[in-house]
């Protein structure tokens, strides 16, 4: 009897469970709810004007603890810096979000998507074409060049927020 009791208890537990809601989610037919701050796939976003947000400052790549981000900075004819190429090796990425934290322009963002499995490891190396989205991501407002002091075409010196117009060097007024 002493030996039988635990087995009976187990049978009872299983039986009682029949009348409760199941916890299993029918993934992938049923989507998994993730929190809004979920750190999934990494994307590069665009600013509200539709231009690339990334200014190729290399801060994400240096913040990355597994060194899986590499890029090359360049400058376009408008005076905007941008990455000539941008590569993330997701087979190394640990989704820590340090890159997003380091990014001074809200360009690099971790989104809720995590369905990235591949049959080939090389497919996990994402280039800029795979990373760049057409929207602003989590931060709809921010535009680095509206704050920064450098001039680009369409925003001259003194045209940024909280900037005075360029000084007249030749002025002798006190």
């Amino acid at each position, binding site marked *: 009897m002493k030996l039988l009791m635990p087995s009976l208890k187990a049978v009872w537990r299983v039986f009682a469970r029949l009348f409760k809601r199941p916890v299993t989610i029918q993934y992938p037919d049923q989507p998994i709810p993730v929190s809004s701050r979920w750190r999934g796939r990494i994307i590069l976003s665009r600013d509200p004007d539709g231009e690339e947000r990334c*200014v*190729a*400052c*290399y*801060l994400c*790549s*240096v913040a*990355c603890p*597994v*060194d*899986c*981000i*590499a*890029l*090359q*900075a*360049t*400058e376009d004819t408008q005076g905007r*810096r941008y990455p000539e190429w941008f*590569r*993330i*090796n997701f*087979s*190394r990425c640990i989704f820590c979000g340090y890159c997003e934290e380091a990014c*001074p*322009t809200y360009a690099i963002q971790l989104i809720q998507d995590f369905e990235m499995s591949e049959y080939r*490891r*090389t497919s*996990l*190396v994402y280039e800029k074409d795979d990373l760049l989205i057409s929207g602003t991501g989590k931060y709809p407002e921010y535009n*680095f060049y509206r*704050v*920064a*002091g*450098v*001039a680009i075409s369409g925003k001259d*010196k*003194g045209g*940024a927020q*909280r*900037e*005075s*117009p*360029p*000084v*007249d*060097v*030749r*002025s*002798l007024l*006190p």
Partner: protein
Amino acid sequence: MTKGNTDSITIHVDGRSVQADPQRNLLESCLSLGFDLPYFCWHPAMGSVGACRQCAVKQFKDESDQAGRIVMACMTPSAEGTRISIEDSEAREFRASVIEWLMLNHPHDCPVCDEGGECHLQDMTVMTGHVSRRYRESKRTYRNQDLGPFVTHEMNRCIQCYRCVRFYRDIAGGEDLNVFGSRDRLYFGRMTDGTLESEFSGNLVEVCPTGVFTDKTLSRHYARKWDMQSTPSICSHCSVGCNVHLSERAGIMRRVTNRYHSRINGYFLCDRGRFGYEYVNHPQRLRRPAVRASRENSVSLIPLMPAEALAQLGVRLAQKKRIVGVGSPRASLESNYALRTLVGGEHFFSGMSEVEHHHASLILRVLKGGPAPSWSVQEVEQADAALILGEDLGHTAPRLALALRQSVRNQPMEQLERLNIPRWQDSAVRTALHGQKGPLYIGTVAGTSLDDVATRTFRGAPNDIARLGCAVAHKIYPDSPKSSELSLSEADLIREIAEALASAKRPVVVAGTGTGEAWVIKAAANVAWALRRRGVAAGIAFALQECNTLGVALLDGRSLDRTATTGADRNRDAMIILENDLRRRLEKPTLDRWLEQFDPVIVIDHVDEAVPDHADFVFPAAPIACSDGTLVNNEGCAQRFFSAMPKEPDVEESWRWIRDIARHASRDSFQSMSNWNRLEDIHDAIAGEFPLLRRIGETAPPAPFRIWDQKIPRAPHRFSGRTALPMLETIHEPQPPDDPESPLAFSMEGTPRQPPSPLIPFFWASRWNSNEAVNKFQDEIGGPLRNENPGVRLFDAQSRRVIPFFENAPPRCDRRNNQLLLVPIPRLFGAEELSARSSAIRERIPQAAVVLNPRDADRLGVRKGHAIDITAPGLVRRLPVETDETMAGGVAGLLVVGDGAYVTLPAWVTLRRAPST
């Protein structure tokens, strides 16, 4: 700054008693002692002006003083018993508020600023703890200027420390950069947009504590400091041998920065050295061996695998009795020696033209045998009187010119002791000296960039300059040969120069190979030796043509004269040309005749333009930036350079090609080369053969050198992208490239400790990300690096030796009726082969031209811009005319900008205005 030799004193910093130098200010003392004290306007080579108010500390009267007062450390001398506190809360608050003011207008653009990550302003802001901008008003902005191909201007970032104008005007003598405007509208720039004229403009990038001036060539292939693998190397663009750091990432050479060397370059480099590196990235650089099957028409060079090319060459060389080797003054000592070993001493040519070779041997004789020591750049900077004969140093050895510009202050500075002004008090010193200058006499063919600090200048043909030099020597010491036919005004000048030099304590005589006239060198030697005989501690310095001219001259090669190959036969003889564009050293007909006589002609080089049409085999050599070896600079100092890039497939160092050629050709000489696997093996062989070079292996620690069993990492510990960078080709992370040649590693792994000075890959210290971190590598500000190995000085002067003067001073240079003496006028940009391949430098190369004095131009009936025909035996050229007031009369100058065919200069030529088309 001048080093003080007085006894040390005790100062008290935050309760700690430490030893300091009384010749120093408190900031220098604190930094030397390893304390972190923020500063901006003070610079180790420029002294203090107290402009930025950042280095505030609290000074106490004595032990009982608790209140203390705030002083600027850079403006307060270290005196016995000085009590200061860096950590005092009031001092800290003061410094934090200063930086808060400086940051009021600093733009929000660090992410797009090239200085970011190695910015002194960032470091100091973090150090003082300022984090957020409380000021809510708008920021001041400026318009930028286009400053030419080297330097980018972004005035918004300026913090008004005045370092740029102090360097550019006070140190480099530039005129076209200044500070404009008033109150908070100060503007550092030029009157109008335009290229910065100074040959030292690139130093603004390092001198500026923030990102106002940044490297324009770097921004074309930008990488952060933390992402670049840096390597200690030697500048290969002139004979001075400045120490540089070469920075590379992903197979692209990204930039050159100054590598402090207490005896040579100090804190500054010239623009040719800083921006000439892009030849390494040149798309046409030779990277694969190539073979031409036959000399028949239209058979071109075909790329081949190295093993196959060597095998084919072995077959072709097997029937050859003799191989002639042409060395190169721009190749390492080891490569030249390897070639010499392969071909044998009697078939080894130094690779220099007849004139160049003669001059180099002459200079070697003067430096090694004479009583006047060869002075390093920093010794020249300490000279208190100087005579320059013939050389336009601003174009042939700019770093030496910069040193001479500083040296004119030395004699007036002697009164500072009496005035009780310390030497680091820069603005007080300049006020006290009131523009006084010590003696500097310059005799050249045309005006030079040093003329504005010269006491007097003298213009003439190279012979006339030499004649003047000889006359000065005779005046100083009458045993020295006399010069004839001196005019009255000349005699007056000669007396003045002789008196100035003989009464100086440390005079220096500077000459060089730039004029192509050997007598200029002899005259300089005569002056220096005469001074020595008078008992004056004089030194001598020469500017030579290439980075290893003196090194290859030490190897006893033959010169490339016209008769050099007499008797050569293409059925019997083969030729190896090592890293040498012979069109720059031989007249075309001679060169063609030469190359016809040899079969096969083997070229080992990395410059595609240097490969002659006759080449049968081409082997891609690793340029100096990508190889290991030794160079001998103008002082006679051997220095080691290391490869800044991992080995590329198919590209080898020249000496390895030569060894492999010897193996495949089964030459007898291969026996002595068979065990050459590393540089150290060649060093042993060189040391055995040339007594002067016996210490060649001591220039740097050998390849097995380790610190605690670890190599020295070329990449900083923050190097990024390791697991993403190579993923284009393969997902498997490759091993870091091996570097068996040196104690350095192409990796971020290795010792965190400071290596001996020839191996320091970059200047970086905790909390000091910018190049200002060099302070942490010195025991004393402006002194030698810790564990300094300054290279090996190969010979020392025989100071007691009495050797005969050069006799038979040249006669006055006669004016010829219809002819002018054509002399070379070397240009900083263009005269040197490798830097001229760099895209930024190419924008600055002047057009080839003939320079005439306006009076001569009038006589010839030409004006600026007209074309003129130059004719002389073996020379016909048509060039545009430039006129120059400062040009000597009776002399025409040919701008040496690396175009066209070689001509032996000086030569008498007939000039005639070209018929207008």
